[in-house]
């Protein structure tokens, strides 16, 4: 036992430093203020309008909104240091799964989820896999590619065109991550969307995806922050770019830029709520998540941003944009039937298993030649 204790002490020491650092940097949150952490920009704005404001009005508690750029590092530091300041986090599925495995997230009892207005129990109203031990899915976003129709006319129509430099010359923006890039490359190489992960789990499949990426590698501009994708398109630095569909919607429908989304081989991701282990306001956090999971509240968010609510009953309530009753939001949703024809549904288990491995390969591939 003493051996174990001794072996652990450096980790304790490290945690102590993290605690000291966290204490020095601690913001002035008052007890009873719920800290909700999300991705920032128009996305957070839509959550503030749909969830934060009505929840504050209902409960009288304040919501402190913080931005982060994904990943688990802040959560891990807070939990290790025993100084948790975040309550609710909007988290990517694969990270949430790993965070749950590592004991960084609280378990959430799905019975807190309110039933649909027509009485359908919550479990049947969420798509499969959207509820897991530590996470409640709330939104469907999509990685698509979009092009500037002023510069490409006629524009690309399929994912093959994205990987075809002869037909559509010019630089392409891509996210610096194997996620979505490898799936799209395989579909462009002729793999049916439904079999992508089966192929990608084999070494030959991985080689095949990278071979396809090799074909455009020289012409790729890699972005990391989501806002950078639309910036590259706006600056004319690229002729087409991978991007989250909500970003393109804002740029084209609200800011009037000449961008068009190609929905072929879109990669659907589900965004989740999670609660940090040892969150100071755990009960309030649960209440907030239950409130945000009401279909009618989800539908409000869909009037602010073109990401689809997870719940089936909520998608049926999608209407027009809050600023413009003429602008029907439904065709802009990744879950609109016309957009779903060749959809790739992100396999979270696959990425939890292979992310490290494929990241290693992807990073090495980026560096070579």
């Amino acid at each position: 036992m003493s051996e174990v204790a001794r072996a652990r002490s450096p980790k304790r020491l490290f945690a102590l430093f993290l605690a000291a650092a966290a204490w020095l940097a601690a913001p002035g949150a008052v007890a009873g203020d719920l800290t909700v952490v999300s991705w920032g920009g128009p996305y957070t704005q839509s959550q503030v309008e749909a969830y934060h404001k009505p929840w504050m009005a209902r409960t009288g508690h304040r919501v402190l909104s913080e931005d982060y750029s994904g990943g688990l590092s802040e959560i891990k530091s807070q939990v290790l240091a025993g100084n948790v300041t975040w309550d609710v986090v909007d988290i990517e599925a694969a990270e949430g799964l790993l965070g749950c495995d590592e004991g960084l997230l609280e378990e959430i009892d799905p019975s807190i989820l309110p039933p649909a207005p027509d009485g359908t129990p919550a479990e049947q109203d969420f798509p499969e896999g959207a509820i897991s031990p530590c996470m409640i899915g709330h939104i469907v976003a999509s990685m698509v590619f979009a092009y500037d129709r002023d510069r490409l006319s006629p524009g690309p129509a399929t994912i093959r065109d994205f990987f075809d430099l002869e037909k559509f010359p010019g630089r392409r923006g891509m996210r610096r991550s194997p996620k979505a890039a490898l799936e799209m490359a395989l579909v462009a190489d002729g793999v049916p969307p439904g079999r992508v992960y089966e192929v990608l789990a084999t070494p030959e499949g991985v080689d095949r995806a990278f071979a396809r990426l090799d074909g455009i590698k020289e012409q790729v501009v890699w972005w990391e922050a989501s806002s950078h994708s639309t910036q590259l398109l706006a600056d004319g630095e690229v002729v087409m770019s991978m991007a989250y569909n909500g970003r393109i919607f804002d740029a084209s429908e609200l800011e009037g830029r000449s961008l068009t989304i190609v929905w072929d081989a879109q990669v659907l991701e589900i965004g989740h709520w999670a609660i940090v282990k040892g969150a100071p306001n755990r009960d309030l956090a649960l209440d907030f998540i239950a409130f945000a999971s009401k279909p009618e509240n989800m539908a409000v968010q869909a009037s602010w941003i073109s990401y689809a609510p997870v719940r089936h009953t909520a998608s049926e309530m999608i209407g027009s944009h809050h600023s413009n009753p003429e602008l029907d939001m439904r065709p802009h949703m990744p879950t609109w039937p016309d957009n779903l024809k060749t959809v790739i549904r992100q396999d979270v288990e696959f990425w939890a298993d292979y992310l490290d491995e494929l990241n290693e390969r992807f990073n090495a591939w980026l560096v070579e030649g």
Partner: protein
Amino acid sequence: MTPSASPESVIAVDGIPLKTKLARALMVRRLRALGLTMPLLAFLFAAFIIPVLVFLWQGVHDDTYARYMSHSTPVLEAWDGASEPTEAMYEALQKDLVQARKDKTIGKVATRVNRELPGGRSLLTSTARRAARLEAPYKKALIDLKPAWGRLETWQALRVAAARYTPTYLATSVDLKYSGDGSIRRQDEKRRIHLTLFWRTVEISALVTIFCLLLGYPVAYLLSNLPQRSTNLLLILVLLPFWTSILVRTTAWIAILQGNGVLNDLFVAFGVIGDDSRFSMVYNRTGTLVAMTHILLPFMILPLYAVMRTIPKAYVQAAHSLGANGWVAFWRVYLPQTLPGIGAGVVLVFILATGYYITPALVGGQDGQMISNLIDFHMRRSLNWPLAAAMGFVLLVLVMFLYWLYDRVSGIDRMRLG
């Protein structure tokens, strides 16, 4: 030497040997000096040295598996890593999996194993889910459940994960692979990345240092030879960017260098290039070099200026009066006197450059990334802190080696900051 000349025998007026008095006086001075630097030393020790050491420790020590899998750890340690796994090993594993699932620690163990064996995460979690229902003989039961348990690689990966002290992260950070049978081989060609990046880091840092020296030297010379009023104005021009946020300066370079940026627009307007053949000057190595040179330039100019200001003009004048032309006077008289400033500037810029990561991340594209970007990636995204620690350690050793080399070649004691 006569005894009367030795200091022991010299007695001060109050009867105490002079040597003792002298030692006391020196001691007081030393203590006072130590007392004044104590706050800084204590701060450095607590906030820098200890955390760095503790973090580096994580690069060789990882007891996640050993802590939560108490039955299989000793069995795996005793195994030679090459022979057929025995029934006892399977039985110990089954016991551990049942226990780890009950304690909800299976996720941590699975994450650790996944680093050695891609797909190991779901292999462990899904086996653990059903482990309680398995019956002896466990070897057959486990292999029937998941054929992967019959493979030697799976067990070798477990053996690597079970070791509390492991060279695996250090090996990975220099593109070697440590296997369960104890051998160390070169990493598979498609996964080699670290040595390339270490070399590139040195290369980019060296280029940035050279550019800073070439650009900074004339500026510092100008600064130190102008009348005071113009010097102050120029110095502000040097310092103003120095006080501006790195992010702002880097983003400004994107606006200037990008395809539709200021510089390319100017080139097109003056007919230097056609509208369809604009230069790619950002999101590649050029972008990294330009932005980093600009950001680090003050670190070269300021020590150079400080040294040049103290060089009397008379030396160069004397050289001229003795018949040296401009070049000879500069090369043989002026330049050698500025060497301490060059040394300080070069070391400062080079060492700062090796640790840069925000600028390469923003403007580096794919061939302008440095090792620090990968460390950042493992800290923030993949949460592989032990690997990040190991890479940090290698970088530290590399920089210390270069520093040592510099000391041998040029002498640290000749370095001056003014």
